[in-house]
């Protein structure tokens, strides 16, 4: 590519051109201003020659033709280093102007990044960059070390109106006014001079001017004088098509007619003047100067001898200090001359010559450490290399070298470095090295924010243009630039850069980046008053939980500020604050299942179902009723949920504040839509809204909100602290029948922003609140309800159900049922999940005084069987109906059966009185949680009373396990008529305090006596009074009233439940006994000893076994001591008896065998084991007779020591008896003792065999049909 055609080439051909200094009188300017132009402005369109075609001959003998040529005209006052402050102002103005012009499309959405990449280069970077860069380059013009800015020629202009024009010409060249460059010797003051006389044709004919011209020619020489006539257009104003001055006048207004008095003659005259000036004067002058200088340089510096000399000469100056400016070189110095030579050659297009001279001088400067000059020369070398289009590397090296050298100079070289950098960048851009160009842009960023903002923005475009595009860098530099623009209040520029950055960072997961970009662009829009756009960007940063608290506050505050300034409430779809946890969405509605309390819905559906199973009509029946009815009516909606008009649907959804700062949310309500049943199209539309775009959806939502006539919504105001989550309960109550669709939720953030959230958009994630019936439906339908006409609904609760109770706590409760509607309900049924805890009482129990009702009454009536169906369903009386304001009260008994947390469910089923309604029945589900604390821990241990038959010792251990309560033990009762219980010792003796403080344990012994008679009589009574038992009071007599009645409801009912819990039926109680311990807590603050009358604890212990596993028990009725005089008789016979009791219901045949002295038992064991395998039947013939059995069985190994002298069983060694059920018999026994001592009469065994009476159904109940029991120790002391 021809370097001249490149942007840099064009720029160089415009910027590095000969400078012409213009000196003019005020009158000249005045004439020109008639055209709204200054003199220079008037000339400048003609200073640019694209095809001047002048032959040029510089150092070589071969002339070449110069095509493009340009003159730069400056007033003498402008030829100086521009003031930095002024330059800055100028730059700022350029930027601001560009910003103003850029207004067009700020509010549109940021472009998509792929579109940006496709657009062409010129579209990407704004055009004003060129202007800015040009201005930036000009800030360093007219520096002393660069000869190309030194004026080549001087044009003095005097008006024909001026008095004594010749003197004026002389005056103009007065040295006082001339630029310092000429005065202080940086450049040769002897420059080409040219004299122009301007004549304004409006002021009259030009004769006078011609006269002056001749005078001038005489004075200043023939060649250097010109006459320029302007404003030739006499009357009419000339409208210039394609006005040539427009590009040169920055601040032009359209109303000004630039050059309105200049007609075509003036045009040509100006053109000729400049053409002549260029081709006839300036170019030849420069040519000549180049030639002269070249000769001089060649003479002094070229050639081996000169080089050596030069080197030697410079070495002498080595110790000179670093010189930062070029002032040490005057125009007459060789270095300056070489530089001038190089620059002139460059301007004339002889790059080879320029380069060789630059090279020559650069080493000199380097050795002299004249860094600024050195850098300037390096810069020019780079440019020359570029123009020669050879050795890119060299060019870049030179540029970098120059750049770094300028930077080394510190602040003074800063601007030069910038210019150098800009040229370097252009050079790199030409070679498509955008990445490198961008890094140079980055390097020329100065501390000055505005300047670097522009540079960074240009750098970002370079990254975008590089191949492949470096989007990350692009975005980063845009943000850097935008940040700086914003700090400089260049808001429009900031928005432009941030907007581009948004397109890069759209949807980025880099949270801080996203927040920064959106926050700042939002702020910028806010500054400009474009609040709508600002708010949309600010919305993006609201959920900034990763930011620090201060930042969060800042974001929220700025957001609210912008919203406030906007002065309207914004409605935002998917507002991110607060976060809605859609998975927490829970819908509670009541179709045929109604709930007594909110907590009831949290119980699993399956629990309810299993409870209801027995009560609700079976499915086929139901299908023929309302379900099928509806499916016929509305086949389309058969899958949607059913709800009843007038009954609220509750929605719980979690709002979470992601921030650390509190936010306030008001007017949280649901968005619902209720359409009449026939209006199907409408609901279809709303169903499909989720598929449509945001705006559409938004519009839809708003429409839906506006229509709230057919249902009522609840509104909730909440305040969320930092990081807090809150489950918001919302309700919608449909008023009419139809299809209700819950669309979403809306809320108001800080009173100014309305957020919407559509549930529809997140159907996929949603959990279905109620599982069973909806598992197969599409999830969208959960939010769709079919509203049917209003139905009676029972409301119920249990009065005064405690939340916390001690185990055993017994209480009388009342169930309250209410039906608000005027329609009646009937066929009430009820079931509880834990009959152990909650028992349904009888209607007449309602007004009982508790706990007096528990006390035993004198007239005991047999309890009427409550109406409990087989599976625990309680049927209310059929004539009962609840309606209107009437309350139905029903007694309940509560007993805390076991410690722990209990979830108690009660289901009440009822049917509609009005059969025409949509549903035939409904159920009321009540749910209570209660905590049962341990109170008394009671355990019983029963062992046979050693010396008595059918009597047992009961060892009761009580531990008070409460934390603080003292408990008074009142009464212990046995259940069943065949047990009698009594205290072993008087209660005062064993238990004086009568109460147990917390943690105290206590044991107590009772005597339990079995008083079973024959089975036939017992059964008849027990069926009537299954719970009649005996009581023993554990409080001193007379301190309390009547004992508690354990045989009656509710204690008996609860006892039944307890027994059921233990899984054994009622009848199977032959050898086990049930106890009920009744106790009362003592109030701590009350006086001790007085029990709290309103609390009764009952503790039930069921099936406490009476220890002996065998149905046979016996007592050896032997004397304890016996006196015998062994001197008279050598042995002593002792007679005693054994009483045997058969406690089973079967006949028993018992063989009593005595075993002789233990010493032989071992020997006999082997022998007997052979024929004594198992137990054999013995004939029943000899009832009640003692029979001796020949073989002796040694089953027992003696525990007695050998030293104890043996005794001999002297009676029959084996006795067989037959015992009827529940009867006793006695066996006489005799032993012989030969010496005094203590004898253990335990070496006998009882073998028993039960024979079933003859009824076959009892076979299964037999525990043991036969067995053997060994004797227990019974000591007999024989004294001499």
């Amino acid at each position, binding site marked *: 590519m021809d370097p001249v055609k490149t942007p840099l080439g064009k720029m160089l051909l415009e910027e590095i051109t000969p400078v012409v200094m213009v000196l003019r009188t005020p009158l000249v300017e005045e004439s020109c201003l008639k055209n709204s132009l200054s003199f220079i402005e008037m000339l400048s369109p003609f200073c640019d020659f694209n095809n001047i075609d002048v032959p040029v001959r510089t150092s070589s003998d071969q002339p070449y033709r110069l095509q493009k040529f340009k003159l730069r005209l400056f007033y003498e006052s402008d030829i100086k280093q521009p003031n930095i402050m002024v330059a800055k102002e100028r730059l700022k103005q350029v930027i601001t102007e560009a910003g103003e012009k850029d207004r067009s499309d700020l509010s549109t959405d940021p472009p998509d990044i792929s579109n940006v990449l496709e657009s062409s280069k010129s579209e990407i970077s704004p055009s004003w960059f060129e202007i800015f860069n040009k201005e930036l380059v000009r800030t360093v013009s007219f520096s002393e070390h660069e000869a190309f800015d030194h004026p080549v020629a001087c044009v003095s202009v005097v008006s024909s109106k001026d008095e004594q024009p010749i003197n004026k010409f002389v005056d103009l060249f007065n040295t006082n006014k001339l630029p310092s460059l000429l005065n202080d010797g940086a450049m040769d003051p002897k420059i080409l001079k040219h004299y122009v006389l301007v004549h304004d044709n409006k002021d009259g004919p030009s004769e006078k001017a011609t006269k002056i011209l001749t005078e001038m020619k005489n004075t200043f020489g023939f060649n250097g004088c010109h006459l320029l006539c302007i404003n030739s257009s006499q009357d009419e104003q000339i409208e210039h098509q394609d006005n040539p001055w427009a590009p040169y006048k920055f601040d032009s207004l359209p109303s000004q007619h630039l050059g309105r008095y200049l007609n075509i003659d003036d045009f040509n005259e100006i053109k000729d003047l400049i053409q002549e000036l260029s081709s006839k004067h300036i170019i030849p002058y420069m040519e000549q100067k180049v030639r002269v200088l070249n000769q001089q340089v060649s003479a002094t510096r070229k050639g081996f001898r000169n080089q050596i000399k030069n080197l030697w000469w410079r070495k002498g100056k080595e110790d000179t200090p670093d010189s930062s400016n070029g002032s040490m070189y005057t125009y007459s110095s060789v270095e300056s001359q070489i530089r001038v030579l190089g620059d002139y050659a460059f301007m004339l297009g002889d790059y080879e010559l320029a380069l060789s001279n630059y090279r020559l001088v650069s080493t000199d400067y380097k050795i002299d450490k004249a860094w600024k000059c050195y850098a300037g020369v390096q810069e020019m070398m780079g440019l020359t290399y570029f123009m020669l289009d050879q050795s890119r590397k060299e060019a870049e090296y030179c540029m970098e070298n120059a750049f770094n050298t300028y930077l080394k100079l510190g602040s003074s070289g800063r601007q030069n470095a910038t210019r150098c950098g800009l040229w370097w960048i252009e050079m790199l851009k030409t070679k498509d090295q955008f990445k490198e160009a961008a890094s140079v842009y980055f390097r020329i960023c100065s501390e000055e924010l505005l300047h670097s903002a522009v540079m960074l923005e240009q750098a970002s475009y370079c990254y975008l243009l590089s191949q492949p595009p470096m989007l*990350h860098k692009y975005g980063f530099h845009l943000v850097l630039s935008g940040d700086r623009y914003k700090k400089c209040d260049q808001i429009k520029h900031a928005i432009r850069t941030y907007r581009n950055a948004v397109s890069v960072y759209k949807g980025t997961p880099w*949270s801080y980046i996203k927040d920064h970009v959106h926050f700042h662009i939002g702020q910028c829009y806010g500054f400009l008053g474009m609040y709508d756009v600002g708010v949309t960007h600010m919305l993006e940063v609201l959920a900034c939980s990763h930011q620090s608290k201060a930042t969060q506050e800042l974001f929220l505050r700025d957001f609210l500020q912008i919203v406030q300034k906007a002065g309207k409430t914004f409605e935002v779809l998917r507002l991110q604050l607060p976060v809605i946890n859609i998975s927490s969405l829970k819908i509670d509605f009541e179709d045929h299942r109604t709930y007594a309390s909110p907590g009831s819905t949290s119980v699993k559906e399956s629990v309810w179902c299993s409870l209801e199973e027995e009560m609700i009509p079976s499915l086929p029946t139901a299908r023929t009723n309302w379900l099928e009815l509806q499916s016929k009516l509305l086949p389309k909606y058969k899958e949607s949920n059913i709800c009843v008009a007038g009954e609220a649907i509750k929605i719980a959804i979690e709002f979470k504040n992601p921030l650390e700062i509190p936010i306030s949310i008001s007017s949280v309500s649901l968005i619902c839509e209720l359409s009449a049943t026939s209006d199907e199209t409408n609901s279809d539309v709303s169903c499909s809204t989720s598929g449509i775009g945001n705006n559409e959806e938004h519009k839809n939502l708003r429409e839906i909100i506006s229509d709230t006539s057919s249902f009522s919504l609840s509104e909730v105001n909440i305040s969320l602290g930092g990081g807090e989550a809150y489950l918001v309960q919302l309700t919608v109550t449909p008023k009419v029948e139809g299809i209700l669709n819950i669309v979403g939720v809306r809320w108001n953030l800080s009173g100014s922003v309305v957020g919407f959230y559509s549930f529809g958009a997140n159907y996929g994630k949603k959990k279905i609140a109620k599982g069973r019936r909806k598992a197969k439906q599409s999830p969208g339908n959960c939010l769709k309800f079919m509203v049917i006409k209003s139905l009676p609904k029972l409301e119920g609760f249990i009065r005064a159900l405690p939340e916390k109770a001690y185990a055993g706590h017994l209480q009388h409760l009342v169930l309250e049922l209410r039906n608000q509607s005027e329609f009646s309900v009937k066929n009430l049924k009820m079931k509880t999940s834990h009959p152990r805890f909650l028992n349904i009482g009888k209607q007449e129990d309602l007004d009982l005084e508790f706990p007096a009702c528990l006390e035993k009454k004198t007239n005991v009536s047999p309890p009427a069987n409550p109406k409990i169906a087989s599976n625990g369903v309680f049927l209310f009386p059929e004539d009962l109906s609840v309606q209107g304001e009437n309350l139905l009260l029903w007694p309940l008994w509560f007993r805390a059966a076991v410690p722990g947390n209990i979830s108690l469910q009660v289901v009440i089923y009822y049917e509609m009185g009005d059969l025409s309604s949509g549903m035939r029945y409904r159920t009321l589900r009540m749910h209570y949680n209660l905590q049962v604390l341990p109170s008394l821990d009671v355990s019983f241990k029963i062992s046979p009373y050693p010396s008595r038959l059918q009597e047992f010792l009961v060892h009761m251990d009580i531990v008070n396990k409460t934390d603080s309560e003292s408990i008074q033990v009142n009464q212990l009762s046995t259940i069943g008529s065949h047990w009698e219980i009594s205290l072993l010792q008087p209660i005062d003796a064993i238990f004086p305090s009568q109460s147990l403080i917390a943690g105290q344990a206590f044991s107590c012994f009772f005597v339990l006596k079995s008083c079973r008679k024959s089975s036939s009589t017992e059964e008849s009574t027990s069926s009537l009074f299954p719970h009649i038992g005996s009581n023993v009071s554990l409080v001193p007599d007379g301190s309390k009233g009547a004992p508690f009645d354990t045989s009656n409801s509710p204690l008996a009912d609860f006892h039944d439940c307890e027994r059921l819990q233990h899984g054994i039926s009622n009848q199977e109680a032959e050898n086990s006994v049930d106890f009920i311990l009744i106790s009362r807590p003592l109030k701590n603050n009350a006086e001790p000893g007085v029990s709290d009358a309103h609390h009764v604890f009952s503790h039930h212990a069921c099936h406490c076994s009476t220890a002996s596993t065998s149905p046979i028990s016996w007592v050896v009725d032997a004397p304890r001591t016996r006196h015998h005089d062994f001197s008279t008789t050598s042995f002593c016979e002792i007679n005693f008896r054994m009483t045997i009791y058969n406690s089973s219901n079967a006949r028993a045949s018992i063989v009593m065998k005595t075993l002789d002295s233990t010493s032989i038992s071992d020997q006999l064991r082997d022998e007997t084991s052979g024929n004594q395998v198992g137990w054999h039947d013995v004939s029943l013939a000899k009832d009640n007779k003692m029979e001796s059995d020949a073989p002796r069985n040694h089953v027992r190994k003696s525990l007695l020591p050998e030293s104890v002298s043996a005794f001999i069983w002297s009676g029959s060694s084996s006795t067989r008896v037959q015992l009827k059920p529940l009867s006793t018999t006695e066996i006489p026994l005799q032993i012989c003792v030969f010496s005094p001592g203590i004898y253990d009469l335990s070496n006998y065994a009882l073998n028993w065999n039960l024979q079933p009476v003859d009824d076959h159904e009892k076979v299964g109940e037999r525990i043991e049909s036969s067995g053997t029991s060994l004797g227990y120790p019974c000591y007999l002391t024989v004294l001499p």
Partner: protein
Amino acid sequence: MATTACFIIVSRNDIPIYETDAGSATKREDASQMHQFILHAALDIVQDLAWTTSAMYLKAIDRFNDMVVSVYVTAGHTRFMLLHDSRNDDGIKSFFQEVHELYIKILLNPLYLPGSRITSSHFDTKVRALARKYL
């Protein structure tokens, strides 16, 4: 010990999956966003460099003012990016290698979905310990 150091693991989809500030310097308010910007911008250069070498450790690839970005690219093109201001090349290299081992352990977790955020607190403490040790 570097005064400013920020360590980010970037998944192959350019999503940051782990971030920590390992530096000891008192944090400026906008430091974390600056760090993110710098590291994010450096991704371009990583993209270029990653395919020019077989080494995983790409050394210091980018700089912004006095902060240097060092990058380590795993075989799965997950990038460990460290923003630091100290010049401790060996330490950084060892740091990256050890973090790579930790990262592989994370990857071996069958419950970890590659490319998702690393939330393991164990990983976090280990990385911080490594940063103290090497940087």
